[in-house]
């Protein structure tokens, strides 16, 4: 039963042991995560990892096979209207009436919500002022995507789902979309973002969960990810012959002691010595690499 929680509930999304099966295929295999209010949370993973399935369960499009899910205190499977009034959705791919103009669409969508934002303000925010009289069938792919943003935001939602929002964008349009997402965060909105772009997750998300084959492999702030069981430090240097070496270690202190002792004994210097924590990209690549024999 959906007992709406008081607004003071600090969690916008709670997912516990979520499982989704399509016939024999297990798309989501028991994942847990929570998104705090006002947080930008990134689900990062390769295609087919289960990102969209997870998000569409939270949006109320799909029914879960097992597990517990709460979105703004509601069970999304029951598709309560009160929930739909408080969330905005940018689907991975979706169409619109071909003969509606940008402005007509935004104004019409505003009418679905109890307290919408000003359509003109949303059109400006989405960068569609010049295209506002254009019919949907004549929009470019990037403009259509920006219209998706506008329609998801015009209801002034507390929670925004963005499923691969910038796929297919040129670099300028991506930066623009990032600005819009940052502005949502500044307004205190909660954002659940899926992406397969590492830089996007690193630039936007407060926390990231890396998902593959329906499982969460790691979770944390983009800068901290990798500190933990899978944590590695990378130690690199150039030897006297000019050759670059690289070691990955759990214990950089011991490795450095060994390396420096040996170098001193040989009377050499460790040129360009560096100790780096793995970047999000390193963790991602390590975690999502196919195990090949």
């Amino acid at each position: 039963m959906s007992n709406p929680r008081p607004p003071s509930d600090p969690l916008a999304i709670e997912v516990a042991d979520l499982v989704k099966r399509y016939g024999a295929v297990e798309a989501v295999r028991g994942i847990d995560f929570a998104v705090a209010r006002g947080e930008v949370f990134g689900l990062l993973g390769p295609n087919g990892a289960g990102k969209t399935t997870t998000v569409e369960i939270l949006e109320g499009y799909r029914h879960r096979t097992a597990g517990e899910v709460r979105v703004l205190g509601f069970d999304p499977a029951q598709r309560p209207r009160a929930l739909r009034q408080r969330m905005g959705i940018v689907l991975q791919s979706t169409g619109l009436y071909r003969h509606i103009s940008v402005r007509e669409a935004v104004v019409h969508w505003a009418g679905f919500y109890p307290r919408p934002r000003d359509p003109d303000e949303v059109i400006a925010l989405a960068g569609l002022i010049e295209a506002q009289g254009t019919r949907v069938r004549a929009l470019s792919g990037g403009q259509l995507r920006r219209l998706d943003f506008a329609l998801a935001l015009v209801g002034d939602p507390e929670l925004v789902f963005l499923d691969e929002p910038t796929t297919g964008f040129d670099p300028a349009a991506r930066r623009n979309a990032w600005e819009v997402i940052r502005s949502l965060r500044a307004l205190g909105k909660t954002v659940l973002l899926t992406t397969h772009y590492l830089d996007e997750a690193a630039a936007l998300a407060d926390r990231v969960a890396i998902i593959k084959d329906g499982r969460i492999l790691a979770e944390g702030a983009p800068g901290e990810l990798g500190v933990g069981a899978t944590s590695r430090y990378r130690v690199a240097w150039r030897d006297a012959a000019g050759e670059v070496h690289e070691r990955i270690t759990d214990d950089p202190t011991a490795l450095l002691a060994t390396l420096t002792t040996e170098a001193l004994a040989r009377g050499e210097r460790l040129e360009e010595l560096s100790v780096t924590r793995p970047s999000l990209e390193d963790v991602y690549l390590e975690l999502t690499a196919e195990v090949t024999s």
Partner: protein
Amino acid sequence: MSALIWRQYRLERRMFWRNPTAAFFNFLFPLILLALFGAVFANDQSNLNVIVPGIAGMAVMATTFTALAFSMTFLREQGVLKRIRGTPLPSGAYLAAVFASAVANAILQIVIIVLAGRTVFGIPWPPAPLELVVFAAAGVVCFASLGIALSHAIPNFESAPAYTNAIFLPVIFISGVFFDADKAPKFLTDIAEALPLIHLIDGLSGAMVTGQGLSHHWSDLAVLAVWSAIGIFLAVRGFSWEARRS
């Protein structure tokens, strides 16, 4: 709720008129047929008496069955249904507006066909207006639900014309849209009698030409009701807001 339906209905109407192809096939095509057959049978009142209710029945089928099978396939494949479903607009309000828009087209068509029959071919005003309303309503419900049901079976929008025309064209042919169905071979009339269109046309003929009241057409209404029940069952049971996963 009614305000939401009305608002959505107005959007659907605006979108309809902006789509010239749909407007043409749903709207002008029956009128062109009426004009052509009217010209052929210009001096033959008995044939005109067949053709006018026949075209009216065909128009109801075209504006509801064919149009909804097309548009639901298109809206589903394009993801419009899915997007609408993610908004607070209640699904029932949306579907009511889509249905009402199809009904508006059917009503417009019947009005124009009655006017054209009166002014161009000298057919009297419908002698049984109540029956006209009852049969138009029964036909609209029946063919709208069958159109939505058919859309579930159409795999993609490219094949929508093939699916709908494979049903629409033979059915209008054997149901006596263009000729008196009683003159067709028996096996064809037997098939036609099992389908709803011929019964809609019989009822419309009673309303528009012979002036027979509802009491003469209970069996026609019963057949339409059975097909409506089948159509509504299949339309609801198979309904999907999303295109099938490929």
